[in-house]
């Protein structure tokens, strides 16, 4: 084959969907969070959790859920960066807030924490359904586990569950191992298995089921075993993050401080895992972890620095991108070995793992394929717990005439006599 040339079209599109996120890369502090409560008592009964947030620099705005003055946005600007719904029984939000407003809030890239409870209102259930989580339809059902319950003074109905079936992801629940089980008391939910956006963070044990603890079990429970999710997170396509749980009390000071002993286990922990688990999880929800950005997408010939207008096919091409992760205070280099770049035209012609220099710079070099067309450099990075990166940069190739005859002959064979009688004008009518 002849020598091939590569031309780069000036029009280059970079898609960085996470830029439209609420998470402003420049001013991550000073974030305002709206907390909607059923009752201001929750403010004090759950103060440990709120304090941990405040300590990390969040500005919490407590409002009653039916306060007529609450509003998420004013003059088209959102007033808050995140929303915490600790109001399981609210039937109707006050002010201009409704389900659509909350969903729009999420769809414009803001984060959400929902805690439901027994007898959660339809409103809360509906918000959860919109996010891809289905609470048990029986309003009085609770998660019951006769083998994995938390041992307490009274025998009880085994609705207080000690669970440690965490998701295996350091980025979501932190790298420090959570030793003690997490106490949970409330309703379970199920996830649609085809829904790729929602993750089960804390699941019930195989012996759990969801039913009304007060009535006798007449029909088989609809939700059973580890299909029941106790705590789930959603990362929407715009990287808004949502935490959904069926237990408001797991955030409470009482659960935070309480000791825990799982039935059938002799180990008794002084302190439940709730505080560590939920605090670490909130870090993920509020983008203090697992949030990536890619900058400085570059491609050039090996040995040069500028993006050249022309490439010869036998020259090596170098592609580089810098990827950083937000650490809570600053952008730190993201180090991994599984970022791949595709040289893509309908299908990847080159698929290469990028090597990094431990300072966030990822690069790869490869030979231009022997095909002309409009190609894209694509980085599609989707890893559990991380924001998804989707970069594409369009380039086009062509073969110059002095490069020899092969090409012209080849295409002429395919298109030959397509033009013998010149090109077609238009399709005829078929009826």
């Amino acid at each position, binding site marked *: 084959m002849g020598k091939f040339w590569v031309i780069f*079209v000036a029009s280059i599109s970079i898609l960085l969907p996470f830029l439209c996120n609420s998470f402003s890369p420049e001013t991550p502090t000073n974030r305002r969070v709206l907390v909607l409560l059923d009752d201001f008592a929750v403010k004090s009964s759950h103060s440990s959790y709120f304090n941990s947030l405040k300590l990390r620099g969040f500005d919490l705005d407590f409002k009653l859920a039916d306060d007529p003055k609450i509003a998420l946005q004013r003059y088209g600007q959102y007033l808050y960066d995140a929303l915490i719904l600790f109001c399981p029984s609210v039937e109707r939000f006050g002010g201009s807030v409704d389900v659509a407003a909350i969903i729009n809030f999420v769809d414009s890239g803001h984060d959400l924490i929902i805690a439901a409870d027994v007898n959660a209102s339809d409103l809360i259930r509906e918000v959860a359904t919109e996010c891809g989580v289905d609470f048990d339809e029986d309003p009085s059902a609770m998660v019951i586990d006769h083998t994995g319950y938390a041992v307490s003074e009274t025998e009880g109905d085994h609705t207080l569950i000690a669970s440690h079936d965490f998701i295996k992801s350091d980025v979501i629940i932190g790298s420090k191992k959570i030793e003690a089980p997490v106490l949970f008391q409330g309703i379970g939910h199920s996830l649609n298995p085809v829904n790729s956006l929602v993750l089960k963070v804390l699941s019930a044990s195989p012996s759990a089921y969801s039913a009304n603890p007060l009535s006798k079990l007449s029909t088989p429970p609809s939700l059973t075993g580890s299909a029941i999710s106790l705590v789930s997170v959603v990362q929407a396509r715009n990287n808004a993050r949502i935490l959904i749980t069926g237990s408001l009390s797991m955030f409470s000071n009482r659960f935070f401080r309480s000791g825990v002993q799982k039935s059938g286990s002799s180990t008794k922990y002084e302190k439940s895992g709730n505080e560590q688990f939920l605090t670490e999880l909130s870090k993920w929800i509020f983008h203090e972890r697992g949030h990536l950005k890619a900058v400085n997408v570059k491609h050039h010939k090996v040995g040069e620095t500028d993006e050249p207008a022309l490439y010869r096919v036998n020259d090596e091409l170098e592609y580089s991108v810098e990827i950083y992760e937000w650490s809570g205070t600053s952008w730190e280099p993201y180090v991994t070995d599984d970022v791949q770049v595709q040289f893509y035209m309908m299908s990847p012609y080159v698929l290469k793992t990028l090597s990094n220099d431990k300072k966030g710079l990822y690069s790869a070099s490869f030979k231009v394929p022997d095909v002309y067309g409009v190609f894209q450099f694509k980085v599609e990075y989707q890893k559990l717990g991380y924001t998804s990166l989707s970069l594409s940069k369009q380039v086009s190739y062509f073969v110059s005439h002095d490069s020899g005859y092969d090409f012209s002959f080849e295409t002429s064979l395919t298109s030959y006599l397509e033009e*013998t009688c010149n090109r*077609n004008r238009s399709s005829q009518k*078929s009826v």
Partner: protein
Amino acid sequence: MAAPETSTAAVQTLYTNNTLRNAFGGVLSFFILLLIGVMAFSIRLFSVIKYESVIHEFDPYFNYRVTQFLAKNGIYEFWNWFDDRTWYPLGRVIGGTVYPGLTLTAGTIWWLLNSLNIPLSVETVCVFTAPIFSAFASWATYLLTKEVKGTGAGLTAAALLAMVPSYISRSVAGSYDNEAVAIFALIFTFYLYIKTLNTGTLFYATLNSIAYFYMVCSWGGYTFIINLIPMHVLLCIVTGRFSSRLYIAYAPLVVLGTLLAALVPVVGFNAVMTSEHFASFLVFIIIHVVAFVYYIKGILSPKMFKVAVTLVVSVGLAVCCAVIAVLIALVASSPTKGWSGRSLSLLDPTYASKYIPIIASVSEHQPPTWPSYFMDINVLAFLVPAGIIACFLPLSDASSFVVLYIATSVYFSGVMVRLMLVLAPAACITSGIALSQAFDVFTGSIKFQLTGASSNTEVDAAETSSSTAESQTDAVKTEKPEETAKNRPSRKSKKKEREHGEKPSTKAKAEKKRLLALPLESSVISLLLLVLLGAFYVVHCVWAAAEAYSAPSIVLTSHSHDGLHVFDDFREAYAWLRHNTDVDDKVASWWDYGYQTTAMANRTVIVDNNTWNNTHIATVGTAMSSPERAAWEIFHSLDVKYVLVVFGGLVGYPSDDINKFLWMVRIGGGVFPHIKEPDYLRDGQYRIDSQATPTMLNCLMYKLSYYRFVETDGKGFDRVRQTEIGKKYFKLTHFEEAFTTHHWMVRIYKLKPPKNRIRGKTKKSKSKTSSTTSSPKRSGTKKKNPWQ
């Protein structure tokens, strides 16, 4: 119709040997030719006067875009132009896949005018290229016919060609297509061939090769030339008309012409490697063998010659068999037997419709109907047989070429309606000959009857002139080179001598012919009838130019009881795309609108009218035939942002996408077998009313065409199909309406991005009612009707 009369005048001047009258005839011919040129140009301006100075239809927009690029970036950039705006993501190398003749011609004109400080826009130059070249074409016709049958016939043929509707249909102002210059190149190449054949000079042979090169640059139809001329050469050899003139006319053309043709990137090695060109090489070999045989015959005694012949024939047969076997094996090894689809459909008209839906789908590739012959060549259809007869009186090399030309072009026009264009010049030439011969006979008769037997000799001269016309002058010319051949004792030259010997006897015949002169009255009446016929032709041509062929097809008009309606929806839609979408957005539509979208909206398209990649077109066809979700996925994988459909149901525009839809199904199904045509037909009938199949009612094309259509009249009555549509109320889930033009003729939809969240299972409880109340609210903002 002044031409034939002057031709007789010219003829008479020749024979009175009056130089003054001769010069007068020449000047008159010159002015007539000038007027013919003016007429050819001006009859094509109806489109500019009735509409505006715009580029027409589909292909011209591509040519226009290429010319713009050429004017802006120069010739070298043009050769290396890789177009990333079309066939996304494959792209297309324009420089290597386009016939550059038209573009270079218009680009040169533009450059010349600009360097003369005449600042015309590229568009203006493109619009008027076709009329200018049709003037050239009629002059070329004059030259060609003059070579065959003399000035009178030439002028008549030129006048006929200047206004033949078939040619007008492709060359009105704005119809900036390859045919515009190619027809001129075709006729001019033929003229130079005949000229070389008549004179036998290498000068004309070289010019002929260059003209052929220009033709190759301009149009894929050059294969017609490179097959017709060998056929004629073969005919001459077979009928014993081989001469050195024939050799000079043919051999340089093949050698030089093939070399030059290979310089055109789009042809390249095809010039020696495809079967379309094989005929010329075969004849090239044959003519050499024949020339060699004549030479050997000249130097050997008859007895030796016989021995040599048997030897050569036996050896030659063996070699021939071997060569043919190799050739057949080579050709058979290629899947289409070395013939591309379109040429195969030329030989077997049913081939394309059987095997290649993309070729069958093009309306121009259908066989024409009888009315289209009458529409396109009108009275010429009746004059052609007379012209053919005239060509046999007497049969010269040149006139046999005309006969061959008309015979083959009639065949080809019967295969593909667009090849009517090749027939038109041939029909004009033969009709011109017929008309001028008829005028000669009638005016000669009148003159004979008027002058009576007063001056026998003069009549005698006039008679011979009228019957054999200028072919005799040709014969005079051609005799010169033959004199050298005459000295050799070849059978051929003997024959010629015999013909010369017969000359006196033809004169004797002319004596008899005087007795055959028609009576005065019938001559006058016949003359009048002929003039009437010509007048009818003129009226028809002007009507065709004004009414039938001037519509630019991007602007439509319709007359109704309340006046003239103009539908400018196409440009409205393209302008919307240009101004409201991102530069790099990809627009998907059926391939018909590809060229226009790239040229007028400057947006990237997936497929266009250069249908070089069947799979890609099938992908778009499949998307259009699929349900919404599958279509969304196909389009999304091609990075498509907008989908454009043409819909005529509101105003009754019949060539809309619903009417073309079955072709999308067929072409799509040809590559992706899960699309099956019967799924879209109810009992073999294509319908969109309530009887339509569910597949039809759920496919993307139906939905995009009829989305919210019911809101226009409350019933959803489709004025093209003359029926109420089958499914009236439906919502789009993966597409949203972005723009609909004033008359709903073009509708543009945007692909919705993937959902931000995935909803959980819908619940039957009260939450459902509240969710349905919230969702229309969100979509309600988008439902703004762009039409109002």
